[in-house]
């Protein structure tokens, strides 16, 4: 069956009979749109597999028109590592994950896939809380942030946020690590550039590549979409600065 392509949506965005899966003002759909565009623009539609964990990110497994696998919460790093090793260098293996999926329950697979310098690419959408389950404290919640499991705000007793891009960028096996956001059209383009560079590292078999994408969660932040964008700029970016943290052509 040929799938219908609606003008204005990315070519790889599947037209499926589901209720719009994201809350109003949420940027996760924007992030998936960027993913669709990047895969399409790089001509990787037919040789990519997408590995998706559990959370709002799960929707990517039904929305993107490439071969996809939905796996256990936190485990795309393991699944993708194995798939890449079996399928070989000509297949692009991409994980699409949230911040909890990557850095809390998925810390072990993420860190060890990076340390083994697996030729895979991880895209982590960071919305500073657990969106699907109703806004609980995440490894990337900022200091002072009110969540349903830190009702008086994040304090040192909850621990400190993990800066995934800087952390992974410090590992020897990592070829590329960057953080982008969708707070402006310029940032949207810049983030897409990071995503393409990351996939380029995989294509050239340099090693593990990682891009973190800051994203709004208006429903759980209890803000309007506009306020949410402002909150990313004022509260998140100071603790999660944008830019590239590692970019090498050879793992030394």
């Amino acid at each position, binding site marked *: *069956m040929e799938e219908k392509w609606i003008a204005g949506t990315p070519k790889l965005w599947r037209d499926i009979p589901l209720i719009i899966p994201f809350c109003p003002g949420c940027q996760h759909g924007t992030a998936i749109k960027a993913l669709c565009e990047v895969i399409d623009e790089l001509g990787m539609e037919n040789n*990519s597999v997408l590995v998706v964990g559990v959370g709002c990110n*799960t929707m990517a497994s039904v929305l993107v028109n490439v*071969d996809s696998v939905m*796996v*256990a919460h936190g485990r795309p790093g393991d*699944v993708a590592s194995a*798939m890449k090793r*079996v399928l070989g260098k000509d297949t692009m293996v991409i994980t699409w994950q949230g911040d909890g999926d990557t850095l809390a329950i998925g810390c072990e697979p993420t860190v060890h896939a990076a340390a083994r310098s697996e030729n895979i690419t991880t895209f982590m959408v960071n919305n500073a809380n657990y969106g699907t389950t109703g806004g609980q404290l995440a490894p990337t919640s900022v200091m002072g942030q009110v969540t349903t499991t830190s009702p008086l705000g994040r304090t040192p007793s909850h621990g400190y946020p993990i800066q995934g891009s800087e952390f992974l960028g410090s590992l020897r096996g990592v070829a590329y690590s960057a953080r982008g956001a969708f707070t402006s059209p310029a940032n949207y383009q810049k983030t897409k550039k990071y995503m393409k560079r990351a996939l380029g590292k995989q294509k050239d078999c340099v090693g593990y590549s990682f891009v973190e994408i800051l994203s709004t969660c208006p429903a759980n932040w209890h803000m309007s979409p506009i306020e949410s964008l402002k909150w990313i700029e004022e509260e998140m970016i100071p603790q999660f600065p944008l830019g590239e943290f590692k970019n090498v052509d050879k793992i030394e």
Partner: protein
Amino acid sequence: MAEKLLIQGNEAIGWGALAADCKAFFGYPITPQNEAIEWFAREFPQRGRVFLQSASECGSINMLHGGAVTGVRAMTSTSGPGWALMQEGMSNLSNAELPCIIVLVQRGWNTTRHAQTDYTSVTQGGGYGGYKTIVLAPKSGQELHDFMQLGFYLADKYRTPVVILSDAILGQMMESVELQTLDFEPLPEKDWAVTGKKDSKDGNRRFSSIAQGMLPTPRHPNLCSFWEDYKNKLDSIKENEVRYETSQLDDAEFILVAFGYVARVCGQALLWARDKGLKVGLIRPITLWPFPSKIFEEKSLTGAKFLVVEDNMGQMIEDVKLSVQGRAEVHLVSSLDRHLPIEEGAIYPEKVLEKLEEII
């Protein structure tokens, strides 16, 4: 004639996997299966096959997921504590209907010594959701080798994980193993394998999900349709794949029941008992799930008494009792009957014979 090697059971797993054309192994060190993971580390890469050491058994089972979803034959091996960590993965592999093999080299709870303490966990399904997996229980190095091939065949036939239940004695013992390649019926094509759309015959994307029913797949539009298909699959396995071995059962008034290495202990006890003129037989379940209930049901109607012998505190005995439904006496020889009351102790045929004479 096929080559014969004097090897450990743990190594027989490797040669069996090779004969089955297994392409990928994922694992984490744990006693008493270390010779298995070391065999794959040594032998697989030089044959162009994948060996990858994980960071935990949670990692192993999810790497296995990644290997299996590409359509190649893939496996892992572990022991009890690692098996426990794999349970979420077992649920997911069952839901996603991915064929693969998990070899469980049992140890005595959390000692590194021999026992059969994971029977209930493998046959009941230790994870969530109410799945079942085929469990094959070899009794020798040769069977470990051959059951790897049978296991992959059954896994592919039914799209399910298969557990090969070994233990420290089978794993560590050296025996002569013939490296024979077994023949099986042709299998369906793996058109579900996720390898990139370039390989898709109809041009449509493939989607594999651990949440069949929630995220609709062409196979399963909702949870109830998935449950129905899944139940039919389990029923079909129960109908067609029950395997067991019997010995001198025709006139038996007393029936020994044992799986794995203990079945060989019972074989000796049976010979001694027959020498003494006792009418003793043996049933050895080979598939622990599906359990061979019918033969127990049949024999319970003859008035025979059962003596279950297992190196744990009594796990398979539950299935035997369920099968005979109160129509026959069911007795137990357990780990408490070892020749020495310590980890190094073992269930000896003398003890089995002694217990038989007690019952009689």
